[in-house]
C-alpha cells in the first residue's frame, strides 16, 4: 500500500543491489534531502544553529563510531579524543595559513594515525579489555592537550577558529556553516551505507561475529581491524574539525572530554549499533531530548502548572530522560533504528500481517 512493492521488478543485479531498491524509500530519502537542503529557507536561525547543525555533526560522529563499534565490533571509549586530535590539528594548521581543505584532510589523517596506534591494542585484546585500552587513549590525549601549552593555547586554553573558506566559500555565515556540515554528514552517510555492501564491510562483519572464524575463511584480521580503526578515526577526526569550525567556532579541551565520549557511545547504542538511520536517531535523541524536555518543564513552571524549586526543576528533565532511555531499550533492545525498522516492515506488507524478514 504505502510501499507499493507490486510491480517493482528488478531485471539486473545492479538494480537489486542499489542502496534503496524500493521506490517508496527513495521518495522518503528525497523528501528528507529536500527538507535538509531547504532548511535555511524555512527554519529560523535559532533552530538551524542550535538544533539542526549540532544534530548533523554529532550524527556524522556517531556514524563514524558505529562503523567501528557496530560494524567491526571493536568497542571504542576514546572517540572524544579522536575528534579532539582532528579539531586541534586542523585549527593549528589553519592558523598557520594552510588551506582549510588540506587542514581537514590532515585532521583526518592525524586522527587516523593516532587512532591506529591505540587501535593496535585491538589486535591483542577484545571486549572490555579493549574498552580499557581506548579509555587510556581518551585520558592520555586529554592530558597531553591540557598540559602542552603549544596545543591547548596556554593559560586561557581556548583557541578561536580563524577565518577560513571551503572551496572558495567563506565558512562564516550560519548558512555556509550549515551547508558544510550537511555536506559532510551526507558524505559520511553514503560512505557508511556503501561500506556495508562492499567486501570490506562484509569482512568487518565477519571479524565482528567471530574473529578467528573470519581468519579461517581467509579474512586478514590484522589488516581489517586496523583498517576499521583507520577509517573510523579518519571520519572522527574530520568530524571533530567540522564540529570546531562549523559549530563551536572555538576549541577548548572540555569540548572533547570523556563526557563527550560517553555521549557518543550512548548515541550509537540508543540509536542502534551498526545502523545508519540509528546514528541519526540516536544523536538526535541524546542531543536534543534533554533540551526539549528542559524547555517543556521550563514552560510548565512559567505557566504556573508546576511549582518547584529551580534545582528540582533542573533535575526533572534528567529523570524523564533516564526513564525514556530505559523505556526505549525495554521496548526495543536493538535501539531506535529497530523501532523504525519494525514500523517500516509493518507498512511494507500492510494491510497484511506477515513481514517478509
Amino acid at each position, binding site marked *: 500500500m504505502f510501499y507499493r512493492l507490486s510491480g517493482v521488478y528488478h531485471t539486473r543485479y545492479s538494480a537489486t543491489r542499489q542502496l534503496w531498491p524500493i521506490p517508496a524509500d527513495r521518495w522518503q530519502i528525497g523528501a528528507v534531502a529536500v527538507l535538509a537542503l531547504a532548511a535555511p529557507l524555512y527554519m529560523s536561525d*535559532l533552530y538551524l*544553529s542550535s538544533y539542526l547543525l549540532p544534530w548533523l555533526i554529532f550524527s556524522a560522529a556517531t556514524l563514524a563510531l558505529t562503523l567501528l563499534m557496530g560494524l567491526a565490533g571493536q568497542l571504542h571509549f576514546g572517540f572524544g579524543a579522536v575528534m579532539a586530535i582532528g579539531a586541534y590539528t586542523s585549527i593549528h594548521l589553519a592558523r598557520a595559513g594552510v588551506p582549510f581543505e588540506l587542514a581537514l584532510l590532515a585532521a583526518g589523517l592525524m586522527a587516523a594515525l593516532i587512532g591506529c596506534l591505540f587501535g593496535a591494542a585491538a589486535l591483542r585484546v577484545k571486549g572490555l579489555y579493549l574498552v580499557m585500552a581506548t579509555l587510556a587513549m581518551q585520558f592520555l590525549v586529554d*592530558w597531553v592537550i*591540557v598540559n602542552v601549552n603549544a596545543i591547548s593555547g596556554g*593559560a586561557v*586554553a581556548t583557541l578561536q577558529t580563524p577565518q577560513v573558506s571551503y572551496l572558495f566559500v567563506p565558512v562564516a555565515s550560519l548558512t555556509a556553516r550549515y551547508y558544510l556540515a550537511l555536506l559532510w554528514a551526507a558524505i559520511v552517510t553514503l560512505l557508511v551505507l556503501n561500506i556495508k555492501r562492499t567486501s570490506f564491510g562484509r569482512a568487518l562483519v565477519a571479524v565482528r561475529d567471530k574473529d578467528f572464524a573470519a581468519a579461517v575463511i581467509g579474512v586478514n584480521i590484522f589488516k581489517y581491524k586496523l583498517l576499521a580503526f583507520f577509517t573510523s578515526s579518519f571520519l572522527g577526526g574530520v568530524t571533530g574539525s567540522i564540529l570546531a569550525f562549523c559549530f563551536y567556532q572555538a576549541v577548548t579541551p572540555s569540548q572533547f572530554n570523556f*563526557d563527550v565520549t560517553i555521549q557518543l557511545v550512548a548515541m550509537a547504542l540508543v540509536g542502534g549499533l551498526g545502523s545508519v538511520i540509528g546514528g541519526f536517531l540516536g544523536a538526535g535523541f541524546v542531543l536534543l531530548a534533554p533540551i526539549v524536555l528542559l524547555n517543556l518543564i521550563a514552560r510548565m513552571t512559567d505557566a504556573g502548572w508546576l511549582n518547584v524549586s*529551580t*534545582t528540582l526543576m533542573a533535575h526533572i*528533565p534528567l529523570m524523564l530522560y533516564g526513564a525514556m532511555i530505559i523505556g526505549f531499550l525495554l521496548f526495543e533492545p536493538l535501539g531506535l533504528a529497530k523501532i523504525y525498522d519494525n514500523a517500516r516492515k509493518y507498512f511494507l506488507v500492510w494491510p497484511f500481517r506477515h513481514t517478509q524478514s
Partner: protein
Amino acid sequence: MKRTHPSPTRRSLLKAAALAAGLGIGVVGVAQAQDKAPIQFATLMDFTRVYTFLTSEYSQGQQDYIKLVNMEGGVDGRPIKLIIKDHASYPERGIAQYNEARSDGAVFFDFLSTPVANALMPRANEDHLPMIAFAHGRADAADGQKFPYVFPAAAIYRSQAALLLQFIDEHEGGLKGKKIAFVHIDSPFGKEPIELLNKVSALKGFELKLFPYPVPGTEQAATWTEVRRYRPDKVIIWGAGPGQAVSIRGAVGNGIAPKDIHSVIWLSESDMQSFTGDTVVGLKRFTAVNTGTSPAILKRIVDKVITPGQGSGDKAKVGTTYYNIGVASMAIAVEAARLATKKLGAPLTGEKLKQGFEMLKDFTAEGLMPPLTITDKDHQGGGWGRVSEWDGKQWAPKSDWSHAFQDVVWQLIREDEAKAKK
C-alpha cells in the same frame, strides 16, 4: 455552484502532514520589545553536573535579589524577568539556550560555567550582548578592549592569587625566603595562576613548588605526601567543589597547620561543615563579597523577601558565601541597567547595558562588596578582595579591601594577547 474536490489520497495526506510538521519546527514567535515589558536576564547554569556545589546557592541569591528589585519597582518601572535554565556545563546545550534566550529578547547573560562561558564569549561579543563571568572564566576577559561585552566584574583568578600572596607578605611574616606549595587541580582553571606566582616569586624572592592533582580532585593522597616531603611554610590550594574538602583533609592529615592554608574563592560554609570541632579553624580564603546577612542589601532581602516567605530556597542558605556572590552579581547587573536607562533611555539594549556597566563607579552594593569601578578598558574592576579566616562557624574578614600586583596581572594579560595574535 459545483466545486470539484480531488479526493485526497491517504498518501498525499501523509505527505502534507509531514511537510506541515517540518515547517512547524521553523515557526518561532518573535518577542516584541514593548514599553514596560519586563527586562529579561538569562541565567543559564549548571544545576546538575559539574558546578552543583555552587549553582543552587548562587542562583537562590540571584532570584531573591531580583524579587526584591521587582518589589521595589524594578528598573525604571520595568520588572526584571530571569530566564533560568540548566545547561549541565555542556557547551552545545549552553549555545542552544543562549540562542533561544537571545531570540526571546534577553539582554544580559550569566553562564556560571567556564566551558560554556568560554564557548559563548566570542558570540556575546558579536551579538553585542553583555555577559558576566563573576570571578571566573578566562583571564583576558578582564581586557575591555578585547572582549567589550564580557565582564568578570570581580577579581580574576590571578588577582585572587596575587592578593593571597600579598596577605602572606604583609600579615604572615613576609614572603622572602619562604617555601610556598601551590596545590592545584590539573586543569586550565587550576593552572591559571601559575604564571603570576612565578612572576611574583621572582619579584619577592620566595620558593614556589607546584603540586597538581588529577581531575576531578576526589583523590589527592599521593599529592599530599609529596607536599609533606617538601615541608612548605605556606600552602595555597586551588580547586573547586568536592576537591576542596579533600585538599584540606590532605593538608591537615599531613601535618600542615590550618593557619598556613590559603584557598581560592571557591570554598563555602557547606565545604567547611564536613570538618568537626576546631580542626580547620584559622584557614584563610580569598573573599570577593562579604558573607553573612549584615550588609544593608541582605537585610532588605531578609525583611522583604525571606521573612514573608517569598524566598526561592532554603532559608539557612541566605547569607552564605555563594548566596551573597549571587546577590552581588545581580546587584551589579541591575545597577548597570539602572544607569543605562537613566543616561541613555529605555528600552534597554545590549549596547546600552554594556555602557551601563562601564558607568559603574565605586559601586559597593550597599556595603556588600569592595568599591567596583569598571571602565571601557578594565572590566575586572580593579581586582579587589580581602582575605577571610574560618573561625569554626563563619568566614571572618582578616584584612581590609585591597588589591595586589595589578601591574603583573595586566602584564600577563598583555602577554597572553600577544601570544594569541601570533
